[in-house]
């Protein structure tokens, strides 16, 4: 069984890492603004395309590509906040309206990418070539990097929101906007900050994903669905709950693939998801009462 189990666990870890990176961005915006950003996947895609253009077309190297890709995602994220989210603050159905506007943003970005870059597949070079041996299972160095990098990013995020002034201000705004404003926090600017930071996470995920999968205009669509499952499982609450849920889902998915085959895995995940919500309406790690 060892020969199968270890690679499966590594798969689970890799999936969990990718989900954690994506879902933490979603969760960050949700906890700060109460907005669910359906354009998160499209921001990932945008980051990957910009990184590809800078790396491959302009030939400026992968490092420059990464910076440009993440930067582009951040700019797009802030623009979405300014144009598509900010006008609806305080309106009765803000949460639902912003679901629609961010969905529209994702259409615009994805279709726009298709117009600009054309439909042909692209791929970024890997950050590191070669292989690493994890407990006897060979894994590509690039994927190992993702497995190591994701927890590091999450830790940095945790440290940032817990220990720094601007990070704490994000949490403060998420918990009580009026009180935050009354101790001098610029609430709208904090919203932009949350969107920018979340978009940066999307960009990071995008460029990492862009070198293990082909880059297409729909690169972010599937991961977005998975990240949504993660945040539902996690209960959209804290960073810890989201990250925990990400790794639980990643492992579940890998083990389900092993036991049931890839075929039934998505259906089982969806059923599990709906079941979790029936019994725990605020998610697996969410608070029991609303």
């Amino acid at each position, binding site marked *: 069984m060892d020969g199968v189990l270890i690679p499966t666990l590594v798969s689970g870890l890799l999936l969990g890492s990718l989900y954690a990176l994506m879902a933490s961005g979603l969760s960050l915006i949700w906890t700060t603004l109460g907005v669910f950003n359906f354009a998160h996947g499209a921001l990932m895609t945008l980051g990957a395309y910009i990184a590809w253009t800078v790396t491959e077309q302009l030939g400026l190297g992968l490092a420059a590509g990464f910076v440009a890709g993440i930067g582009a995602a951040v700019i797009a994220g802030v623009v979405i906040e300014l*144009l598509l989210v900010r006008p*609806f603050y305080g309106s009765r159905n803000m949460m639902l309206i912003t679901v629609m506007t961010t969905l529209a943003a994702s*259409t615009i970005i994805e279709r*726009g990418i298709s*117009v600009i870059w054309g439909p042909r597949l692209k791929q970024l070079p890997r950050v590191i070539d070669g292989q690493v041996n994890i407990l006897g299972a060979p894994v590509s160095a690039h994927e190992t990097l993702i497995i190591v990098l994701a927890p590091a990013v999450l830790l940095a995020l945790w440290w940032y929101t817990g220990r720094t002034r601007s990070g704490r201000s994000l949490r403060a705004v998420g918990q009580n906007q009026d009180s935050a404003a009354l101790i001098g926090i610029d609430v709208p600017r904090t919203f932009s900050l949350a969107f920018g930071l979340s978009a940066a996470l999307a960009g990071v995920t995008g460029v990492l994903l862009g070198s293990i999968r082909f880059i297409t205009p729909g690169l972010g669509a599937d991961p977005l669905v998975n990240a*949504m499952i993660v945040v*539902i499982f996690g209960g959209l609450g804290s960073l810890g709950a989201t990250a925990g849920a990400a790794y639980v889902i990643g492992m579940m998915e890998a083990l389900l693939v092993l036991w049931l085959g890839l075929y039934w895995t998505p259906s089982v995940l969806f059923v599990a998801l*709906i079941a979790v919500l029936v019994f725990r*309406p605020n998610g697996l790690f969410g608070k029991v009462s609303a």
Partner: protein
Amino acid sequence: MTRTQRLFALAALVLLAIVPFFVTDSYTRHVFIVAFIYATVAVNWDLSLGLGGLFNFGHVAFFGIGVYTAAILTTALDVSPWIAIPAGGITAAIAALIIALPVAKLQGIYVVLVTFAFGQLCLQIVLSQGDLTGGAEGLVRLPYLTIGDYKFIRDFKFAYYYLALAILAVSVIVLLLIAQSPFGKSLRAVRDNPDYAASRGISVARQRVLVLVASSVMTGVVGGFYAIYLRVASPEVFGFSIATLVVSMVLIGGAGSIIGPAIAALALTFATEAMAGVRGMEEARFIIVAVAMIVVLQVAPGGVVDIFGRLLGSGRKT
């Protein structure tokens, strides 16, 4: 609904009813039929989304369930398409009851997420039950409608046009009646003032179950019609692009107004078709629809019907 609006709706219906006598080409009639289908899905979605304030992201799944009900009944069980079409409404209502169980208890974004997951689950089931559903390929060559010797595919879509229009008209009338019933009023009251429910002892859970089931029936029926009309059922009906398109119709038309989404469905279908004829606009037309939706949400949150209402000077009563 004011007298003006009722007159307007009646005039529109009469106008649409005489269209086939002037529009004789199959293509334009087809675009009308597709617009009626989308309009039916949109107005029913408006019941739960606009009037009920329930963000049911799985509404298009009811449509897909209707599509596959009709397709499976006619192919696997040789049921007459005349029975298969309304059967779509029944299965869609059953599905609505099932999804209402978790939805009744959930709040806000969780409603969005769980109904979205429901749509994805339907898609997965269709893909995995290939023997019955045809899997990713779908089911083709479904039987078409006939009355005696009269074949619906032999009249340049004359009869299909009226059938589609009838389904839409029935939907709109039923929904307007619901909107004006005590149930519709309590829906709006709860939507606008959640505390009202508690003070009046209204069961929000029961309301949600009712609203989901009510909005699913005609959606399933028109799904059945879609399958029989195009003679094919394929899994794209559960996809994101149809959901996005129809929800833009609801919002551009004006959520909660019933008539608005129907107008928007016609307008958007013809507008995107007009753009489809232009080389190089293939992606851009989707961008234009998305931008239009954003602009409407920002400039006229009540939708185009609200703009018309203001122009006509008759206040919108929802």
